[in-house]
């Protein structure tokens, strides 16, 4: 369960894991629309993570716990 920072960038959203030096663009996120945010996400390098879905899209950047899939 790494602690990750989700941020907005010019090319969409970025996924940053400070401990692992990993900064990747998020290519897809399960729930992006209003009403629900989070779920399964896929990064540009192909790895997949799971974020506990939230009711509202949070203010970015935000630090969350993500589960590796």
């Amino acid at each position, binding site marked *: 369960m790494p602690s990750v*920072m989700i*941020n907005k960038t010019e090319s969409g959203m970025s996924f*940053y894991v*400070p401990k692992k*030096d*990993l*900064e990747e663009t998020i290519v897809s996120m399960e729930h992006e629309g209003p009403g629900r945010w989070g779920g399964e996400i896929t990064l540009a390098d192909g790895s997949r993570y799971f974020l506990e879905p939230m009711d509202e899209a949070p203010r970015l*950047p*935000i*630090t969350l716990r993500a589960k590796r899939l």
Partner: protein
Amino acid sequence: MCAMKREEAEALIQEVLEVYPEKARKDRAKHLTVNDPNVEQAKKCLVSNRKSVPGVMTIRGCAYAGSKGVVWGPIKDMIHISHGPVGCGQYSRAGRRNYYTGHTGVNTFGTMNFTSDFQEKDIVFGGDKKLEKMIDEMETLFPLSKGVSIQSECPVGLIGDDIESVAKKKTKETDKPVVALRCEGFRGVSQSLGHHIANDAIRDSVLPRRDDDHSFESTPYDVALTGDYNIGGDAWASRILLEEMGLRVIAQWSGDGTLSELELAPKAKVNLLHCYRSMNYLARHMEEKYGLPWMEYNFFGPTKIAESLRKIASLFDDKIKEGAERVIEKYQSEMDAVIAKYRPRLEGRKVMLYVGGLRPRHVIGAYEDLGMEIVGAGYEFAHNDDYDRTIKEMGDATLLYDDVTGYELEEFVKRVRPDLVGSGIKEKYIFQKMGIPFRQMHSWDYSGPYHGYDGFAIFARDMDMTLNNPCWDKLQAPWKKAA
């Protein structure tokens, strides 16, 4: 225009790796590569931020160096205790030349060395009592100090002292922040972890101190200047440019910085980050907690300065945009004169760099302004994200070396024969004896500043002074010279 072809450079790396035993060779091979600017991500071609191979001569520092020496040390109105044996503090005292204004020993303490000087009995019975006594004594002797940071040296972690409880107690007693840092030298693989620990300590014990204090009157043009350690006056040379274009610098982190500047930084409108490696953790934190956007900039060489000034101005209104153009215009003729003078003397020379932090990529622009070419670059303690940024700046088929060992660097230099090597003090004399001009790029070889327009003039002069020094023709004994 590059010195080597890709195949040659790859062959060179293989040849250098030959001497290692198989396991070490496999490990080191991942850290050396030939640059391809088209690669998107450094992790595809280079491994960084790994433990050095035992037995090689690495040039890295320790976590204490990263925390006390780099991030906390320059904060001038706090006392930084080197908690542990006397050597770590004494041998790093004032070596980094973080300039500051103030009366040393009265209201500023930058060049002084405070140490708890551990003896055998402190190791056996613990050093907490000594630390308490020391902080009390410092309160009496230096009442104008604004706070204390306790920078752990290795033994403190090994014997398990509880410096946090001392810090807590003394914070209450003195009503000043006393910050305990677990930056023992054995932690992590390099000084990079020290930066992170120091950043986390500022995040936890300094920044929240003014969260509920809204008395500071901010303007729409407030900026924080972070990741500039004022080496030889760098931050001052940067600050005047920002002020000239109409911005107000409310915090300087941490060169010539004060505790209250640290506390004020979240109240800025933009966080301008020079050294990404050592302060990005705080920049990201402030973006999340205070909604303070941050951007990286580069104040080495007129091309990059103009680019950065425009980039900074684009975040503000037209007044600042005009200001930026005015500043660029103002210094243009001066810079043209510098380039006209030095470029003919330096054109086409090749440079190899091996430094830390931001320099291997940031100074490339300054060298290019002088018509010089970077043929190899490497970092002591960079992570992948630093190399991501470096790959784009470097030419095709140039050498990239991470945590290069003494042996590898020497071999590369022998083969590539650059006209100038820029690295640290430990490498300086080896290369000078090899007959290769050398600049110590950690603290600008006791010169500086190199940032900003004023700094570029000094940078150009220094490079000329080193490269075209008449001593390089005198390396051969007179009786060995052909008549």
